[in-house]
Structure formats: C-alpha cells, structure tokens
C-alpha cells in the first residue's frame, strides 16, 4: 500500500515536471510571436528603450495603417492564398492517388518507384532552381499563378504520409468491397478518402503553411508587381536604411493570421493524422 502511494506520488511528480517543461518550452516558442504582436501596437519611441518594454504603453493602430498604406498587403495575401490553396489541394489529390497505388496495388517496380519518389526529399530545392526555372520559362509559365505554384503541386513526404495511413487499412476490406461490386475508384472515393480525413487535413495544413511561407520561387518566376506574394511584400518593408520595426511587425502579424486561422480550423484533426500512420510501417 505504502509503495503504491509512493509510486503514485512519483508518477504525479513526473507528470507535473513534464507539464512544467512543456509549458516552459511552449512559452519560449510563443515569446517571439507575442513580442511581435506587442511591438505592432507600440509607438516608435517605445520600441527601442532600455530596459525593453514588452507591453505597449499607449497602444496604437498607426503601424497597421502605415503598413497597409505603403504596401498592398491584402492584394499580396490574395496572391499567396491562391498559390497556397491551389498547391495544397493538388498535393492532396495527387498525393492520395499515388499513395493509393503504392498501398493497394502490386505491380513490378513498385518499391523502386516508391524509393525514387522518396528520394526526391533528399534533393534541396535550391539546387534545381535554375533547371526548374528553365523548364517553367520554356513552358511559358512566367508571370502566371500556375507557374508560381507548379513546383509545389506534388510532395513526396505527403505521399509517404498518406501511404502509411492507407497501409493501416486491411487489404481484405478492399477485397470484400470488391466482391460487393465496389471498384477501385469507388473504394478510393467512398471508403478510403472519407476515413482518411485527419491525414488529409494534416497534409493540407502543413502544405498550406510551407507554401504560404515560400519566398524564393514565387519571386523568381513572377515579374508582375500586382502578383507578388506576402513574403516578398514583407521583405520590401524591411530595410537596412530605416527603422520601421512597428510596421514590419504589424505586417508580420497580418501575414500570420491566415496560417493561424487554418491551424485552428484543422487543429483537432491534425494530431490524429500524424499519429494515424505511425503504427504500421
């Protein structure tokens, strides 16, 4: 009895310690975002003080007014939204179909194809920048939204995640449905996709955030001022020549809103999505 209580207390202490560490790490991670948020409401004179202040003395919306005045940020957000949503939808469609083939079909060279597919993860994007540019330029896709998102349409990591998820399905389930007259496509659409929503949500959100935050590629293939993305817009606010911390932080906060919104919407789905495929390898 005594030892039981001792173990329980130890377990409780361990649990509490874990919680405290988790909260601590959480606070450290949150701090820059909190500080950016706070600075975005500060007056310029308050930003650079010693000791630094963490809360705005007299909160002002001036920074937001400035940033929207000097940069058409909402227009840029629409551009980024088109690219991020377009690429993310494509990643789900293409990724799930490829994963379906890798998980349920047996054909010669399947493993080799899958390895090749995963191998693309190891190639850094910057290495193929010029080659990609050459291809996209000769396809006449410069200055188009499609050109700006084309290299993001498929992602091997997403295929891998979806395949792992599909592998948790029993093959006999598919065979049973086949006997009942359910073809491959019907099985894919009616059974597989609806039950894989958490994984698909994970793919969507991770893809949305990464494409939304992309800077280099959309800038390289686009030469139209009105088609620029938010990340390029934010870069333009920053400069070695002038101290405009307030407006930059206001811009950064505005740019964060859609990603946080997407995250909040899919938050509950995401955890089960990542855990889903982890058991069967």
């Amino acid at each position, binding site marked *: 009895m005594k030892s039981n209580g001792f173990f329980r207390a130890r377990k409780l202490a361990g649990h509490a310690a874990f919680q405290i560490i988790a909260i601590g790490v959480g606070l450290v991670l949150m701090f820059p975002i909190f500080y950016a948020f706070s600075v975005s409401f500060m007056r310029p004179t308050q930003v650079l003080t010693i000791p630094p202040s963490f809360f705005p003395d007299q909160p002002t919306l001036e920074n937001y007014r400035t940033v929207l005045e000097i940069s058409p940020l909402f227009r840029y957000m629409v551009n980024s939204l088109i690219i991020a949503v377009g690429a993310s939808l494509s990643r789900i469609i293409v990724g799930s179909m490829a994963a379906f083939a890798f998980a349920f079909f047996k054909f010669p060279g399947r493993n080799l194809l899958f390895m090749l597919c995963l191998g693309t993860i190891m190639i850094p994007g910057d290495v193929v920048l010029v080659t990609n540019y050459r291809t996209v330029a000769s396809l006449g896709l410069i200055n188009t939204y499609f050109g700006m998102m084309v290299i993001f349409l498929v992602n091997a990591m997403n295929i891998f995640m979806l395949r792992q998820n599909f592998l948790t399905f029993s093959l006999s389930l598919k065979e049973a449905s086949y006997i009942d007259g359910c073809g491959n496509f019907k099985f894919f659409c009616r059974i597989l996709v609806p039950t894989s929503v958490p994984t698909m949500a994970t793919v969507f959100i991770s893809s949305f955030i990464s494409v939304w935050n992309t800077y280099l590629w959309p*800038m390289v293939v686009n*030469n139209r001022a009105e088609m620029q993305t938010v990340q390029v817009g934010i870069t333009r606010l920053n*400069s070695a*020549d*002038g101290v405009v911390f307030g407006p930059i932080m206001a811009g950064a906060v505005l740019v964060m809103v859609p990603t946080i919104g997407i995250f909040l919407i899919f938050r509950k789905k995401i955890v089960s999505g990542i855990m889903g495929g982890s058991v069967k390898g």
Partner: protein
Amino acid sequence: MKKALSLLMASALLLGLLAACGGGGSSAAPESTGGTEAPAQGEEQGSETPAPGGETVTIEFWNSAEGAMATSVDALVAEFNSSVGADKGIHVEAIFQGSDVTEKLNTLAQAGDYANFPDVGQIYSAGIPDMLQMDNLLPIDDVYDSGKFESSVEKGDIIENFQRTYTFEGRLIGMPFNASTMLFYYNKDAAREAGLDAETPPSTIAELAEWTEALTIRDGDAVTRYGLNIQVDRYELVNYLAGIGADGVNYIGDNGGGRDGMMTKLTIGEDGSLMKLLNEWEKVVNTGGFKAVNDNEREEFAVGMSAMNYQSSSQLSTMIELTKDSFELGVAFLPRNSEEDAWGASVGGGSLCMFDLGDETRQWAAWEFVQFMVSPESQLFLLKNNGYLPVNDNTYSMPEYEAFIEEQPLAAVPVEQLRISHPHMQEPLDILNWELNALARDGFIDWVDGKVTKEQLHDNIVDGFNAKLEEYLRANA
C-alpha cells in the same frame, strides 16, 4: 478495368491542375503607391522622339528598393508616369525583385531566358561583374556614343566619383542612381562628459583609439558602454584602406581594383597597406572598448550602448531621428589611417543598368526613364527623403539644395567628404566579394577576442582571398 481507372485518375489529376491554375493570368494593371510627393519636372524636356503611332510603351524597372527607399522609388516612378511618361507615351512598371536584383538576373541568364529581362534594373556595384556577363547588357556609354537618343542628362553632369564606381575598362556600365559614402557618427554629449573636445572628432585611427579608451565605460570587468562599435565587413575594410597608398588612393586589387580588367589578386598585402592599417587599428583593439560584432549597431549607438559608430551617409536622417531625444549627434569624415594617409571614403549604393530587349522604342523609353531618375530634381528628392548623395552635379547648385542644407547642416558633411575623396577610391570589383566579407568580419572578431594575432589576420585575409580568387579564375577562365 485498370485502364479505365488510370484514365479516370489522369483526368482527375488534370482537372485538379486546371482548378489550381484558375485565377491566373497576367493582367498588367499598374499600381502607383506614391506616399511622398515626388518632384514635378514639367520643364525638363529631353528627347523629342515620341512613341511611334501614339501608343504607350510599357517598360519594366526591377528594383531592390526596401523600406523608406521603396516609398521613394514608387513616388518617383509615379511622378515619371504622370509627367514625362504621360507626355511621351511611356509607362514604367516598377517591380521589387528581392534584396538584390543581380541574383534574379543571374538565374534568368543561367537559364538563358533573356526574353524575360527587364528594361532597367537597379544594380549594386558588387553586381557589376555579373552584369558584364549578360549577353543583352546595354552599357550607358553605348547609349551616349550611339547618339540614337537625345540626352537631357550629359555624362559630364554625373560626378566623377560615382561614374568610376560603375565603370569597367573605361566604359560606363550602369548609371549611378542612389549613392552614399561611409560616415563617422559620434555621441557629442558622451564626448563632453569624457572631457574630449566634441567639436574636434578624431582625425586619425590613433586618435580614434584615444577616444575609444576615453568613451568606454566599465563596471568591473564588464563593459557597459563600448567606445566604438563597428563590425568590419568588406565594406568597412575597403573604406579604411581607401586612403592608404601612393597618390592617396588604394585600389585594393590589381588592374585598378578590377576596373581596368579582371582583378586577379589583392594588392593590399604586397604593398603593405593592410599591415599599416592593422598597426594603427591595433591601438583601438588594445583599448578593450572596441566591439567588432554587429548585434544592432545603429540602435545600440542610439540608446547609448556605444559612443562611436561608422554608418552609411544614407543612414543620416534615421540617425538624427533615433538620437534626437537622447543626445547631440556628431557627424564627421572617416578618420584617416594616419597623418601621412589621405582623407576620403569610397562610394556605395546602386546604379541603373539597361538591357537590350531587341526593341529600339523600349530602349528609348528606358533611356528617358533613367535620365529622369538621375535628374537634379529626382536626386534632390532622394537626398531629402533617403539621405542618398545626389549623383548629378547640377543638384548642388539648386536653391532647394541650399535651403535643405541650411535646414539640416549635417547633410553637408558627406558631400564635403566626397569632394575631397580621390575619384578612384572605390570598392573593388572583386567578384567573390562575399568571401572577402567573411574573411574580414570573422578575422576582426577573432582578433578582438585574442584568438588570432595581427599577422595571422593579415595572412588569412590576403592569402585566403587570393587562393579563392585563383580557384575561381582557374575554373572560369
């Protein structure tokens, strides 16, 4: 069955792609976001040639204008479009292409995509060697020499120092546009408190060392205020070196610092100039009050964490703004290396490079635009709003210029410094400029931390850079 399935999937994929593609297109509605009022230039009439058939010619201007400069560039472009452009049928579309247009142009050139080049690009001096590799570069001297277009800005109007920055083998490659030099900034109140003569800032590095010692405040072993805070990047190093040499000018590298031909080595080792510099700077390092790391130099200076700093002259208005409530700001020439070396600073900033897109009308339009951007009025506008030194000599005789200097006397300091600088005091065209940057920065930090000796630092910079340059030249011969 399988065939049907693959067909279905293929069409679904195509549909998905098309849906993703939706909303694309390339309508080119111009946006003009001029926050500040740009100068009116109604009287200025350059070329008489109108656009053929009365149609508007649209040209692209790629720039790296960020922050306050972005607002100014937008305002100047909007002003051009509504004045000269409207009269002559030219529309300029300004597009921000990241912090360095050169990088993007290099990508295009490597892919052989010259069709998507802009008509005009804003190029830093470090980017000039890259521009020389572009098949379709249209050097400014070619425009002047061909005489195809009338010129409202003569080449002689552009100050020689600025021309030299963008000159290669005697040919002017890009039109100087936003120019600056390095300046010495110091805290006058702190100088007075330390018993120094605040009106006579240090004129040599030896005096700079004395000032650094006097201005450093310590709390036990910890330094609470550094006398001097400056990270020695390539830009700083070449400025310190600029006046150490025969005839009061140091080319840093052979072939006139890469302007009379490809630079193949640093000359600062063999002519002893780097060692002369290090011998003087050793006095500063020995004070212990010299911080060689740039955490946030300008802001730390403004809040009193350091008392002296070197910054570009384009920072002047920002510095005034930052320090106006805390202390009296002093601005001076860069201290000379020693009594026997020359005063002066090298030119920094950017130029406007033109590209031949195979259409003479567009070239004419681009030339009109370039001339507008370097007109006395536009250059005055950049001086007032961004602290860039006017490249057009005619600006300095404008009454508006006189009025501005009266209002802000500190703005005259970089101009006077430029006037006494040898026109050949320039950053070298050293191709691998980032290598020199890293060698100088890391080397000085290690020196201050006592990790390397003066001699090691010297050899690391000279031998290290020359080895890299040799490799580069061998690979790209």
